[in-house]
Structures are given as C-alpha cells and as structure tokens.
C-alpha cells in the first residue's frame, strides 16, 4: 500500500450507470456468458456430505434450494444492494412479500409499529388487518405529521414504516427527521422507495435502515414481472438495546447463532433469508429476476424520460380548463416542494394525482375514453397508466375512509410513461372532452 502503488487518492469504484449493467455478475465464472444466465433449477449438487452440512450450517456461502437462494436471483440482489448503497438484499416474489418478510424479521407477537397512513391500499390492509392476526399492532400517522411519529412510539415499538412519497396523494415523509426520531428511540426506519428507485433517491443517505421496493414497478419497468426486494443499510446497531432479541439472542434454528454478532451489517438480510425464506418461502423465480435485471440495465435512461414527461404533464394539467387541481412534488405550491428538491435531486418521479372537474362522473368518462393511456391497477410501467380510485380500486370505501386515505371522488392517478409527450397530451384531450360531455348534458 505504498505511495508508488497508488495513483491519487480518489476511489475508483464503479458509478451508478455502470453498476446498473454489471453489479453482481462476473462472466468468467459463468462459462463466459455475457448475459446473466437464468438458473432454472430447484436445487444444487453438494460436493459431499460435508459440503452439504457446511451449507446448511451457514459455514460456507452457496446455494441449496431455490426457495432460499438462486444464482440468477442473487445477481439481482447484489445489483440492487450496490445501487442503493446497501450491504445486502433479499429478493422476493412481490413488493408485498418483501414488506411482510421485513416485518416478520423485525417483530414478534406483542410488538408494535408506527406506520405512515398514506400507503398503497394493499399495504394498508397488511398493517391494519393482517398483522394484528399475528399479534403485531400498528399506529397510523399522517406522513407530514413528523412529531406524530414520535408521539406514537411505544415501549414495544420495533420500527417506523412509510412510503417516501405517499400513494396516491404524493405526500412526502421528512425522512431525515423521522429517521432521527426512530434512532433516538433505538428503532429502525423502514422505507418503501418504490416510486423513486435508487436513481431518484437513496434512502440510506437520509437515515433509512431498511429499504423496500416493489421491483414490479419502475425498477423492472416494463409491466412484465412481479418482484420485490428488501435492502439493508448495515448501519443499524441491533445490539444497542434489548428490543431485538430475535436479532441478538441465540437462535435455536441455527445451533444458537446470534445473527447480529455473527453477521453485523448484514444480519437483517441473513435472518430474513435463513428464517423468513425458509419458513414463509415467497421466493422470486429466476425468470422474473432476469426480467427485472433487463429493466435495471436501462433504469437511469428510463427514469430521466419518466421524469421529463411527468414535468411536462404537470405543466399541461396545471393550465388545463378541465383540471381542478394537480398534486406532484414539482408543483411550486405542493406542501413538500422544498423537501422534494432536497430528497429527490434527480427528479421528483412520474406519479401525478389530479382532480378532474365534474367529480366522479367526469372521472369515469375520462378513464373510459382515453385510448393510449392504459386503465389498470399498476404503476411504473414504460406505458402511461391511469386509474380513477373512487370508481375502481377504492370504490368500496365509505366517505370517511376515502378521506383518511387521502382520496377524493375527482382524483385520477396518473403514472406517466415514456411515450412521446405530444401523444400522451393528445390522448388526454380525448379523455377531457368526453369528461365534459355529461356536464353539458346536465346543464341543458
């Protein structure tokens, strides 16, 4: 390590765009295959019984059974960990299973979580209805109520969870401040950063400890494959207090192993895999992992286009006669505009919520008449997607529940794709014209 062996003192580790293409994979270890191979197999040969025992005892690294790990999936895991600046990652069959595994790795019956109220509806149901069946209770707090997170922490609280940008209202959690609240209480902050991808925001740089993605969305990007992932930041000290015996105490399932002592900055992922994947088994298929890897190769290129198109749509909608309001962090009067600039310097994402004049009927007419934009229950596709929550995904909610979820009858959720921007606008004009018709009729 002498001076003559080093040329300058600047790290030459690979940058984001390079990692998007290469991280996690070495061709020379895979028959020279330039593309990541799809290891379509359930299981892996042991060299001998000693090798088998060593793998089961976590004495050595390697693959046993594709429910626990798979070489193609492992490339994806390393790639996302590298992009996020994390120590380790565990890919799952969907974003929901990633959240579930994270919670079950962290909590036991009798534990409590503080959770942002502005979440994807499926996530709300998991925290509100399903986790209580396992004895895990949650307190919901509005994402902008930073002090509310602090007040909601109880003795048995094991973590704070939220979406960085809330679904569908685009409220932004003050991640640095909420991370400080969590850390002052000796608990981790878990952030679902699906809407951002690591191209727009790296939550570990703002204090998050566990990052979760539905890879199905922008990361994969093409609307073809379900996948999720949890990523570990590696900074959280599980041994700082006695709140996390499942991480620190000897674990009977592995000969008294203490995950925190043995694996330190990767302890959470090791436990989530060794226990969670073993017992719950929401594994990602190698084919879907490969599909997601293809998407990640062009992540930065796509995200730039998603964001520039979204910016154009914000301007277009903001000045449109048929639009009552527009919610996107780029709108100057958005309550979190300044926070968004700080947390999302590369772009504020491509999710827009807007209110259509004419309320629910107009919303239905708009959705039924656009041709290019797809009406479906997904976001983050390369194609433009729209949905009218009050008549679709949330149609069974009563008024109070709609209001609590930040929804209104006139709201349309727009996931801006990467088509030509003029074509998107022209399509919306068709939708808006149709939306105005019922009102014209009723006025006569």
């Amino acid at each position, binding site marked *: 390590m002498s001076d003559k062996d080093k040329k300058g003192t600047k*790290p030459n*580790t690979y940058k984001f765009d390079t990692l998007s293409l290469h991280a996690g994979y070495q061709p020379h270890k895979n028959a020279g295959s330039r593309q990541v191979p799809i290891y379509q197999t359930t299981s892996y040969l042991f060299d001998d019984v000693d090798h088998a025992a060593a793998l089961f005892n976590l004495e*050595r690294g390697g693959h046993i059974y594709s429910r626990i790990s798979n070489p193609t999936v492992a490339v994806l*895991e390393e790639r996302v960990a590298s992009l996020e600046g994390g120590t380790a990652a565990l890919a799952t069959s969907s974003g929901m299973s990633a959240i579930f595994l994270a919670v079950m790795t962290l909590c036991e019956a009798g534990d409590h979580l503080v959770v942002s109220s502005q979440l994807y509806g499926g996530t709300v149901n998991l925290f509100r209805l399903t986790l209580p069946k396992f004895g895990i209770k949650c307190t919901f707090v509005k994402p902008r109520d930073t002090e509310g997170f602090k007040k909601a922490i109880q003795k048995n609280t094991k973590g704070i969870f939220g979406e960085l940008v809330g679904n569908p209202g685009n409220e932004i959690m003050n991640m640095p401040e909420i991370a400080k609240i969590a850390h002052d209480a000796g608990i981790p902050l878990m952030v679902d950063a699906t809407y951002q991808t690591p191209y727009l925001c790296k939550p570990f740089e703002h204090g998050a400890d566990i990052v979760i993605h539905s890879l199905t969305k922008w990361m994969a990007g093409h609307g073809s494959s379900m996948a999720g992932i949890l990523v570990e930041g590696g900074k959280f000290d599980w041994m700082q207090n006695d709140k996390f015996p499942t991480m620190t105490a000897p674990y009977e399932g*592995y000969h008294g192993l203490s995950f925190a002592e043995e694996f330190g900055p990767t302890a959470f992922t090791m436990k989530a895999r060794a226990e969670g994947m073993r017992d719950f088994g929401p594994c990602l298929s190698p084919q879907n992992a490969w599909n997601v890897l293809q998407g990640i190769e062009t992540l930065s290129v796509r995200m730039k286009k998603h964001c520039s198109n979204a910016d154009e749509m914000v301007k277009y909608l903001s000045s449109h006669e048929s639009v009552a309001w527009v919610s996107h962090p780029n709108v100057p009067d958005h309550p979190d505009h300044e926070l968004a600039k700080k947390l999302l310097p590369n772009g504020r994402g491509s999710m827009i919520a807007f209110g259509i004049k004419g309320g629910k009927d107009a919303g239905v007419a708009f959705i039924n008449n656009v041709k290019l934009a797809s009406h479906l229950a997904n976001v983050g596709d390369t194609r433009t997607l729209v949905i009218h929550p009050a008549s679709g995904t949330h149609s069974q909610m009563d008024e109070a529940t709609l209001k609590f979820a930040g929804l209104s009858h006139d709201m349309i959720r727009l996931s801006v794709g990467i088509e030509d921007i003029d074509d998107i606008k022209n399509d919306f004009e068709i939708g808006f014209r149709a939306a105005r018709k019922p009102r014209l009729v009723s006025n006569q």
Partner: protein
Amino acid sequence: MKFKVDGHEVYASTGGRPFDKNKPLIIFVHGSGLTHMTWVLQTRYFAFHGYSCLALDLPGHGLSGGESLKSIEDMADWISKVIESVGFKEASLVGHSQGCLVTVECTARYPDKIKTLSLMGGAGAIPMNKELLSLAENNDPKAVDLMMDWAHGPAGHFGGHPVPGLYHINTGGMLAKSRTIKNTLGVDFRACDNYKNGFEAAKKIKIPTLSILATDDKMCPVKEGKKLADLIEGSKVDIIDNCGHMMLLEEADRVLKVLKNFITKNYPAKKVIN
C-alpha cells in the same frame, strides 16, 4: 464470547459453536480497522469440524472494549495474553493483512505457543500511502472508501459474493465504519506504517507456515508476500488468481480449501491438548 485481557472486555466469535477447551485452538486476527466478521466464512467451518475458534475483535474494535493498541508489537503481546486468558497453552494463528504482521511478530516472540501460522494477504512490511494515513487519522470516511476500493478485486467491484445477496464493498465499508475511524483505522494504519521488524521476525519462525496471496492484491502484492514467505523456513505459498486483498471473502471457498488442508494436516483436530 466475551472474556477479559488486561482488564478490558474482549469479544471473539467462536464460529457458532460453544468454546471447548478440549479442542485445539485457532485464533483469527483481522486486518486494519475491521472486525471478527471478516472471518465468518472460515471460523464457522472450523468450529463445526473439531476446533475451538476465536475470531477476535482487537481492543477498541468491533465489540471489544478498551482502546486500540498502538503498535504491532503490542498487538502481538496481546494475542499471547488472549491464549492464556482462555486457558490454553498453545494455538494456531491465522492473520489477514495487518493481522499477518501481528501473527508473524507473535510467532517470533512466543515460538512455544504458536503451532501453525497462516497468512492471508501478508507482507513483511506495510508502508502506508501518506494521504490514506492522513485521511484515516483525521476521521475522514474517504479513507474507508479508498481502502475498500484498493482492497477488493473483481468480486468486490463487480459482485459475486459467496453468500447470496451480500455486496462486498458496502459490507466491508460498513464494518470499517462501525467504530470511530480515527480510533480504529487511523491507529491501525499508523501501527502498520511504523512496524519495521517483519522480515527479522520471519527469519525466527520455525513452525509450519502458509501464505495465501492473490494476483490482484494492490494492498499487499504477491511479490511482497513472497518476500516474506521466502524468509520463513519451509513456508508454503498458494496464489489465488483473479482475486484481491479481501480474499477471505472474495474467494472464501478457495481460501477455506487451502486453509483446511494446511491446518488439518499440521494441527489436526483429533489432537486434544490442555
């Protein structure tokens, strides 16, 4: 497990098995600024195969108490005290990087206590890049970033961790940042830079010794490792291709295979001591 040396608490991983005084002892000594966790893919194997393992956190590092020791000689003496503190008269030593300086010096000082010596990414001297040393002593996290860059070969930079899902450079970086950088990495780097006795110590070593070197090691290049090995009587050398300084993680299986063959031959598990 935890025990005390010089009045300070010492943490050592026992590789996932209870510490057993009736099994031969292997002590693993980590590199600059790192912790016992670098050895996880060696210690667990030996612990499950008839050995008592101690992957130490040096004083002031990882989960150990006290302050970091300021010289390689002090660390060598401290290893000798560890052997006594856990009730043993002898041990096999395995060192990585700075740990090689420590274990070479310890073996030279305490020839009756040390039965085999395994060196990974070792050299007779590790003079430090002055800017890197300054960054570490000034608590600048850039020192860790530079160390992680230079310490890793293709597996570290591209990926392909033997444990599915783990990413080398970020994991190593987080280990090195787990305590205050200037108090661990800064003190360790200065100790390495000051140490001048490696080649003389090597000449005194008469026990079975193995050097595992890696072709892409920028921190302790193969030629430096060979210089040291040439001075140790009967020393074996094994060179791993396409691998960097963090060979114990980057090519954990290949390292384990070489280490296993060497230790089981020269310090067999069936041998009951103490």
